[in-house]
């Protein structure tokens, strides 16, 4: 009798576990899935209950988003900025991380401290000073050459992205370089390879797992970023999240929801696909590398 009672408590507990897990899963899946469903609804369907299923597959929303709301251009801009920023970041951060991890030289301690200190600088505080700096520089350039080009410049935006990601990236890469045995370098030197060749041919290829992690984290943060892009690109050459934000602000007065949800799908889809492909690496990498914020 007593045993039976214990069993039923156990069963109730199991039930509680699954109810709790499912509840959280549903509150995450449903809103995300709903955006996908809403993106193929027709205009009239937004006036009925939001829980109704779409009548058909209204792909026109995506065409409108691309043509009328300019999302196609924004998407290209986003792809360009993200790719360029990751490229700059890797070219700059890899050699620096390698040297900081493997060599001690005059000033290496100061450099290490500087990059560590950079971890505590938050982009949201310094975005306005960066804007003012570029504005001032543009003023000077305009005086000399007739036109400024630092604001509204996607390359500068990518450069700022790469710079703000440097401290965390160097921290992650150099802690990986430290774990590699130094016998490889010694062997390369014995074979007559110079410092540069040793780094590019031997050490950087060995750091591949950490490079993959760096690309993953930074792809997500550059692709999703909007406050720097909003501040530094006041002109029409926007990135996707900023374009989406404008669309959201415009939809509050107009009523063309379809385009807006199509735009949201365009922002979400690449990150979701990437996440599904590499989710294991990402959550493990996070456990290793600590915070990404």
């Amino acid at each position: 009798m007593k045993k039976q009672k214990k069993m039923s408590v156990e069963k109730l507990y199991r039930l509680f576990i699954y109810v709790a897990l499912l509840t959280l899963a549903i509150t995450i899946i449903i809103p995300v899935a709903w955006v996908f469903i809403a993106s193929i609804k027709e205009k009239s369907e937004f006036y009925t209950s939001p829980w109704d299923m779409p009548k058909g597959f209204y792909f026109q929303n995506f065409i409108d988003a691309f043509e009328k709301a300019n999302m196609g251009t924004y998407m290209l801009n986003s792809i360009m900025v993200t790719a360029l920023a990751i490229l700059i970041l890797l070219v700059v951060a890899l050699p620096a991380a390698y040297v900081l991890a493997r060599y001690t030289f005059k000033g290496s301690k100061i450099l290490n401290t500087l990059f560590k200190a950079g971890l505590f600088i938050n982009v949201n505080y310094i975005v306005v000073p960066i804007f003012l700096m570029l504005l001032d520089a543009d003023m000077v350039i305009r005086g000399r050459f007739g036109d400024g080009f630092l604001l509204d410049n996607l390359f500068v935006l990518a450069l700022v992205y790469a710079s703000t990601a440097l401290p965390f990236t160097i921290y992650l890469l150099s802690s990986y370089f430290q774990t590699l045995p130094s016998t490889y370098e010694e062997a390369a030197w014995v074979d007559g390879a110079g410092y540069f060749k040793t780094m590019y041919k031997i050490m950087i290829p060995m750091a591949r797992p950490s490079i993959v992690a760096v690309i993953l984290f930074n792809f997500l943060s550059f692709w999703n970023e909007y406050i720097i892009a909003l501040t530094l690109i006041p002109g029409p050459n926007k990135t996707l999240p900023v374009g989406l934000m404008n669309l959201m602000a415009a939809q509050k007065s107009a009523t063309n929801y379809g385009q807006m949800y199509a735009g949201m799908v365009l922002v979400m889809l690449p990150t979701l696909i990437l996440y599904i492909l590499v989710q294991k690496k990402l959550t493990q990498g996070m456990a290793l590398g600590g915070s990404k914020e």
Partner: protein
Amino acid sequence: MKKTTEKRIFIFVCTTPALLLLTLFMIVPTIEVFRMSLYKWGGFSNNQVFVGLNNFKILWNDMNFIRSLQNSILLIVVVTLITIVLAILFSTLLTRENVKGGNFFRVIFYIPNILSIVVIAGIFSAIYDPTSGLLNNFLSVFNIESLQKMWLGDQKIAIYSISGALVWQAVGYYMVMYMSSMANIPESFYEASSLEGAGRITQFFSITLPLIWNNIRTTLTFFIVSTINLSFLLVQAMTGGGPDGSTEVFLSYMYKQAYTNSSYGYGMAIGVVIFLFSFALSAIINQITKREVLEY
């Protein structure tokens, strides 16, 4: 001799670009924040007047700033408490209990973390919309219209609606963090304690919680920093601080003053105060939560 010159060149070439970018786009702007906070510098006129700590004095009497302070503190407290409880609960369930599809749940719970804040703002605007929103329509299906609210339109509720979105965003991230530190606790501890008749709850409070305590402490600092940052990004994309300043938070007020209003000096003074506040709060919490670190 030649070798050392070569080495020097190598080190110089490798570190200089990174150092230059760091200095130009992070160190100089950070110094600028502190310097500009001492100047009165407004509008498009480019004259800066040194006013010492005057910006901070004005700040002290600025009711809008006080309001953003209250909202930020409220968000930090509410979001941290709810998220921590949920994250610890779900990480315990997923690591301690033999759950079917545990991996599936972990993957799903982490999804909000990879979404852009702009998308999250869009999703929650769709949820909170008073007429065509998911939440109000969901409530009307169950005939509990009395619970229907103007989630973002009501000044009293809006800030809690924002905190709901922040919790939704954060639970999975912290859950994964706690899970990785719970996975390090040796199974033998639990076996030994269950031989002595300890139940789940006893095990949780006398084994799991003390052993992940240090991890929880670290995440408390994350909570302060990330709530201040994410609440700004979310508010900026979702409500713009409205209705009538009821969802204005620290950094959104700073941004409004510095960028939209072009009172650069005053805006930077706000930035300095927020920075010092978050630093002090982290230090205090770090002190309060100090326990002897348990080894295993």
